[in-house]
């Protein structure tokens, strides 16, 4: 897990955007009246980018991710994934989705869990074996193939769920607070591993979080959102280098970006 950083394509070298939202709005009809989860969101995510969505709960960051995944339908505006509609992209299996909870099937071993999407997508038994071995290696879970989920720690379960999302080689990875339920030490470790994985696979990652250090540490771009209605209030380009050891979080540059994110979040809150 130590691919040279030079192999990375710079985010600027994108051709067509992977995700493109134009004037996107989504209103939920609830018993207490309509809730505007997303209001007029314009955003474009280029190939190979690592984009974090940060904001307080109710700001629509998860909703936005679910719209990209075609798990929610927008009420207005347009969303394109790989140039297709969200539904067509989902049918083309354009993305892997990592949920807040690992959501592993308890009756399947780790290797069977990772093989689940491959079974559904009709890969041959031989190819399934190869891909499971490869992706489990990618998340450092080799040796745990025959274990059941309950035999693994929470962090390992979440790594297995990432392997499951990677198994079918979608270029886009959507992650919804994947480390939110884990303790800080495990989270640091997984953040580090995720960056290495991103460097090795060169995927586009959309990452929802409510942790400022996590967003700053991981991202090439940080999208700050605010609630009522859910909207984008700021987009911050990271000036950090590609190679990011954990102690980069002590540098003035890092703290400066974190400060900007915090300011953006505060500005969003004071609108109320």
């Amino acid at each position, binding site marked *: 897990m130590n691919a040279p950083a030079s192999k990375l394509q710079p985010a600027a070298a994108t051709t067509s955007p992977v995700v493109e939202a134009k004037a996107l709005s989504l209103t939920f009809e609830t018993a207490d009246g309509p809730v505007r989860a997303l209001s007029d969101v314009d955003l474009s995510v280029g190939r190979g980018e690592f984009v974090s969505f940060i904001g307080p709960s109710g700001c629509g960051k998860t909703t936005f991710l679910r719209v990209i*995944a*075609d*798990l929610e339908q927008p009420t207005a505006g347009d969303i394109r994934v790989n140039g297709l509609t969200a539904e067509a992209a*989902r*049918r083309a*299996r354009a*993305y*892997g*989705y990592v*949920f*807040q*909870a690992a*959501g592993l*099937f*308890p*009756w*399947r*071993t780790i290797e069977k869990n990772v093989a*689940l*999407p491959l*079974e*559904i*997508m009709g890969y041959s038994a031989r190819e399934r074996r190869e891909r499971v071995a490869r992706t489990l290696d990618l998340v450092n879970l080799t040796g745990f193939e025959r274990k*059941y989920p*309950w035999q693994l720690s929470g962090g390992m379960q979440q790594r297995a769920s990432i392997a499951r999302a990677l198994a079918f080689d979608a270029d886009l990875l959507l992650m919804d607070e994947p480390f939110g339920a884990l303790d800080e030490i495990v989270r640091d470790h997984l953040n580090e591993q995720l960056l290495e994985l991103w460097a090795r696979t060169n995927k586009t990652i959309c990452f929802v979080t409510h942790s400022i250090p996590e967003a700053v540490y991981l991202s090439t771009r940080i999208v700050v959102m605010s609630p009522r209605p859910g909207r984008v209030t700021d987009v911050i380009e990271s000036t950090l280098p590609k190679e990011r050891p954990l102690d980069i979080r002590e540098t003035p540059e890092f703290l400066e970006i974190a400060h900007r994110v915090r300011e953006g979040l505060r500005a969003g809150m004071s609108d109320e």
Partner: protein
Amino acid sequence: MTASTPIAAPGSASAATGTVFRRLADGKALPIAIVVAAIVLIWYGFTVYLNAPWQIGLYQRADTEWTAADLVRDTMAQERPVLPAPHQVLAEMWKTTVEVRPTSNRSLLNHAWITLSSTLLGFAIGTTLGVLLAVGIVHNRAMDKSVMPWVIASQTIPILAVAPMIIVVLNAIGLSGLLPKALISTYLSFFPVVVGMVKGFRSPEAIQLDLMRTYNSSRTQTFFKLRWPSALPFLFTSMKVAVAISLVGAIVGELPTGAVAGLGARLLAGSYYGQTIQIWAALFMAAALAASLVALVGLGQRLVMARMGARP
């Protein structure tokens, strides 16, 4: 291997006795034994109390002197007691299971087998029907709205009222013997399976269903890879209830037919001739049968759950 065997053998033996002691210490065996002993004691008390008036009348007509000890002894040895003593029932069971040929008409085992076969057939049909209905209810909105009320309504009709109709109607179209009885078991046993499996098929978490959607999984794939395995624990719980009431259905089904064989027929014949001991023996046999069937389903559950990687 030869060297290790003598060392291993005493170890495993002491482990076995260890578990017996541990179970006793866990306090499972002892409370059960106390409860059983209490029930037997109360039963003997009622045997004397309920059979005494008839016995005393007997003494008075025969003009015999009697003591309390006589009364206790004689109330437990009547031929047609109001309430037979436990040992009388056990003796009757011994006599009709061990001391007669299993094929004989007097054998309780023979009667139990006849009832068991229609129980199992009815249970199998009922479980299959229940699962199929649940699949329909979960996957089809119209069925969800329309079928469930009828399923519930079907169980509000007393089975004793329905059973003779089923037997008569099926007889009229030339079906007799095992199947009509089994269908009464089915009528009772499909219900807990429908209710349990609808809940089971709907038990996957939203996150798991979303996950299947991100894979663009078909409904069939989602069913077999997610809904069915999620529902299995519910299936076994439902089947435990279903197998017990299947037995009730089979016995009830034997009553209106004037069946000559089966535990139901045995109960009916016993009540015609005032053979209370025979009735109680048949009841005990039915209870033992029900307990074994439920235990078997439980065993199946443990085996399947172990294969599905359940935490031991």
